[in-house]
């Protein structure tokens, strides 16, 4: 198959072998799980259990709220200790409700009835994928069902695990390529896609071999394994589509605009398990790796497991542990402590040593070398963009594509002046969004104010009119005087006449 290139990108040292030696390992169930109600893009789910309740493994404990949201299920049987707001690892400073579960043996597990994934009604299959709380497991956590509502021609299964260190998809494909392939065929049925491409990077030979064997076993011509070159950030949706089809997702648009849907391989597997086995999404594969952990590996982790427990499974920290990341080294979130729980979109716990993430050299002025632009997969001019952002010229920044930035971090890495670029772009996006919300609020407030003014004006006009009318109807002071006169003229009846 003829592959295309995306602009820029970097070839980075993979560090996948560190964790992939031991295959998929189980993670012991921790004593306490902290299951967040926000493990997906969009609105948090509403907790539907209360402290003291007994929950079964697979029982729904969070109900999706609105269009972009997802149900949450308990990974284990146990008792709810608390339903309380706790800090979110991915959004420092923000809270979400967590269901804290003390794990135990009873009650018995709950599963949904199995459906026929090859013959079932696509609408029913989609509903099942929603009911199982399946969200994108590649990192963004977009509720999968939402993506399945529009018909597509091409389904891309994303096994291009481009960030260094992360190897969970590799581990998953090596052992469960058959389920991934089934998941791909299931999702293709749901969206009516005639073609499925399973993209795997050329540095993952075992996964490629497993995937090819799984596809051969199926004997379906509509699904093909594609070996793609390992260039970061090829796992980006837009980049992968460009590599496979040569087509660009329109600026400000979505893959659906060109009839493509991209799903992570683990998402496809989760969707298949939800349909064929009735198993809700309550665990995922997480890579625990880096020089800061003793025995790196890939673990099947119950959702809500604290990072500290997971690191213990990997032999604990080494003396080199200096930075704790949720995610990879390019886009991961640095955690201040290890008590945050693993969520559905968390693919990696990476503990870097101090010399790997050596404090950056002092920032120098930009010399306009343009290396950032050469590396940018979105074809932006990061250096020019930074000028606008630093000058507070957010309209210009938006015009020049700050929202097209996928925050891959390539520009940061190549900048000879060590200027942080991605972080100011993140902040600019946040500022523009906040300002849009504030503008919206201000507009609403002004509308309210105007409406109130009009109402007050109307009311005072009405009052004046009423007074006017009353005055007119009583015809002034004469009527009162006449009435008094009449009253005086008539002698009281129940008293004696005056002597």
């Amino acid at each position, binding site marked *: 198959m003829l592959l295309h290139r995306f602009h820029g990108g970097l070839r980075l040292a993979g560090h996948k072998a560190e964790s992939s030696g031991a295959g998929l390992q189980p993670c012991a169930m921790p004593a306490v799980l902290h299951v967040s109600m926000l493990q997906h893009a969009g609105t948090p789910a509403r907790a539907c259990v209360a402290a003291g309740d007994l929950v079964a493994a697979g029982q729904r404990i969070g109900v999706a709220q609105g269009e972009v949201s997802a149900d949450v299920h308990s990974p284990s049987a146990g008792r709810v200790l608390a339903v309380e707001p706790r800090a979110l690892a991915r959004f420092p400073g923000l809270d979400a409700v967590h269901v804290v579960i003390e794990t135990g043996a009873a009650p018995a597990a709950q599963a949904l009835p199995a459906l026929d994934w090859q013959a079932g009604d696509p609408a029913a299959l989609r509903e099942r994928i929603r009911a199982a709380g399946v969200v994108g497991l590649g990192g963004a956590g977009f509720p999968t069902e939402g993506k399945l509502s529009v018909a597509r021609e091409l389904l891309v299964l994303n096994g291009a695990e481009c960030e260094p260190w992360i190897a969970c998809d590799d581990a998953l494909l090596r052992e469960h390529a058959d389920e991934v392939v089934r998941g791909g065929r299931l999702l293709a049925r749901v969206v009516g896609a005639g073609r499925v491409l399973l993209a795997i990077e050329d540095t993952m030979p075992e996964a490629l071999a497993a995937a090819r064997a799984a596809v051969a076993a199926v004997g379906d011509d509509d699904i093909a394994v594609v070996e793609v070159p390992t260039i970061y950030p090829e796992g980006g949706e837009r980049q992968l589509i460009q590599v496979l089809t040569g087509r660009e997702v329109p600026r400000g*648009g979505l893959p659906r605009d060109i009839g493509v849907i991209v799903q992570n391989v683990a998402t496809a597997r989760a969707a298949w398990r939800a349909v064929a086995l009735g198993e809700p999404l309550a665990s995922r594969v997480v890579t625990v790796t880096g020089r800061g952990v003793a025995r790196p590996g890939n673990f099947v982790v119950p959702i809500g497991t604290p990072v500290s427990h997971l690191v213990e499974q990997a032999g604990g920290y080494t003396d080199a542990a200096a930075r704790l990341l949720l995610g990879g*080294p390019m886009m991961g979130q640095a955690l201040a*402590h290890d008590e945050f729980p693993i969520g559905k979109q968390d693919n990696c716990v990476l503990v*870097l040593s101090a010399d790997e*993430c050596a404090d950056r050299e002092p920032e120098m002025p*930009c*010399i306009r*070398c343009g290396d950032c*632009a050469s590396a940018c997969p979105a074809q932006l001019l990061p250096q020019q963009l930074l000028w606008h952002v630093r000058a507070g010229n957010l309209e210009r920044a938006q015009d020049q594509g700050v929202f097209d930035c996928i925050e891959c971090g390539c520009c940061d890495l190549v900048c000879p*002046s060590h200027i942080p670029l991605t972080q100011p772009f993140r902040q600019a996006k946040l500022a523009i969004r906040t300002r849009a919300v504030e503008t919206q609020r201000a507009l609403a407030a002004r509308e309210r104010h105007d409406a109130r003014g009009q109402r007050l004006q109307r009311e005072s006009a009405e009052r004046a009119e009423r007074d006017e009318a009353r005055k007119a109807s009583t015809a002034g002071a004469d009527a009162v005087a006449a009435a008094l006169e009449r009253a005086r003229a008539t002698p009281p009846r129940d008293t004696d006449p005056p002597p």
Partner: protein
Amino acid sequence: MKTFATASAPHLPGKRSVRGVMGLVLAALVPGVLAHAWFFGPGIAIQIALATAFALGFEAAMLRLRGKALRPFLTDLSAPLAAVLFALSIPPLAPWWVSAIGMASAIVLAKHLYGGLGHNLFNPAMVGVAVVLLCFPREFTQWLPPAGLPDGVAVPGLAASLRAIFTGELPAPWRWDMLAQATPLDTVRTLGHAGATLAEIRDNPLFGDFGGRGWEWVANFFALGGVFLLWKKLIPWQVPVAVLGTVVLLTLPFWLYDPDLHPFPLQHVFSGALVLGAFFIATDPVSGCTTPRGRLLFGVGVAVLTLAIRRWGAFPDGVAFAVLLMNCLAPWLDLHTRPRILGEGKAP
């Protein structure tokens, strides 16, 4: 609970540094400088040392005056790079104060008064060259002929060069008037205006295979360094390709039309500072364009202006002025050559 220090992504250290970039550009100049010394004597080494000393002195003074940290900026190697490019653009036996004035213009005027590293609108080295060329044209015409010319006269050695630069005394049998008008470009201009054909002009022993004797070899070694920079992706390919390509494409039809009046395209390429300019001067990131198409246009502009100045201008070579004029245009070119953002213009 174990706690950690946090930082924003990405969490990997940078791949390059300003010092590293400047250092490699300096390293790429070494073959050309050695060739220069081979053909024109050790004067160039003295000029480089002088210019570098003045550059660092002015840099330190300006950093102090502006209240900036000395260490990161004195060691970023940008001032020495400007000094070497300046030294390569002046005659090897130019008096010492040429360097002083050139570097004052480059570092104080062009660089620090515009805001220091990264903020200068004009290429500092070329500002230095332009100031010296405009103010002291006589000193700028005193180029040594290449080694072996005139017959039997040795190029001044280190001590003789030092004395010439600091006291103005030339070792016998050299006289200053022997140095005047000795570059091939000057010769083409002077003899051409006098009505000589190019074939006659090129009979002059100053000429080699394509450009000036000696000069063309120096240019070859600069090109070697330039190819190294291209390979290391330290300079954008657009600028040298546009500069050299435009020169060849623009001069080829004239030469084909009348080779007696118009020099062979490669004679243009291998004369004067064109190769040095294409790889090392017009590629200055700060004062050049930053978009790919902008860089192509920048290179085309440098080539066209250089040829125009060579043909009609009052100065023998036009690279410095061409670069400075294009520096004026660079921000405007950048503005109008922004690359298409991914997915831009695709129907949603």
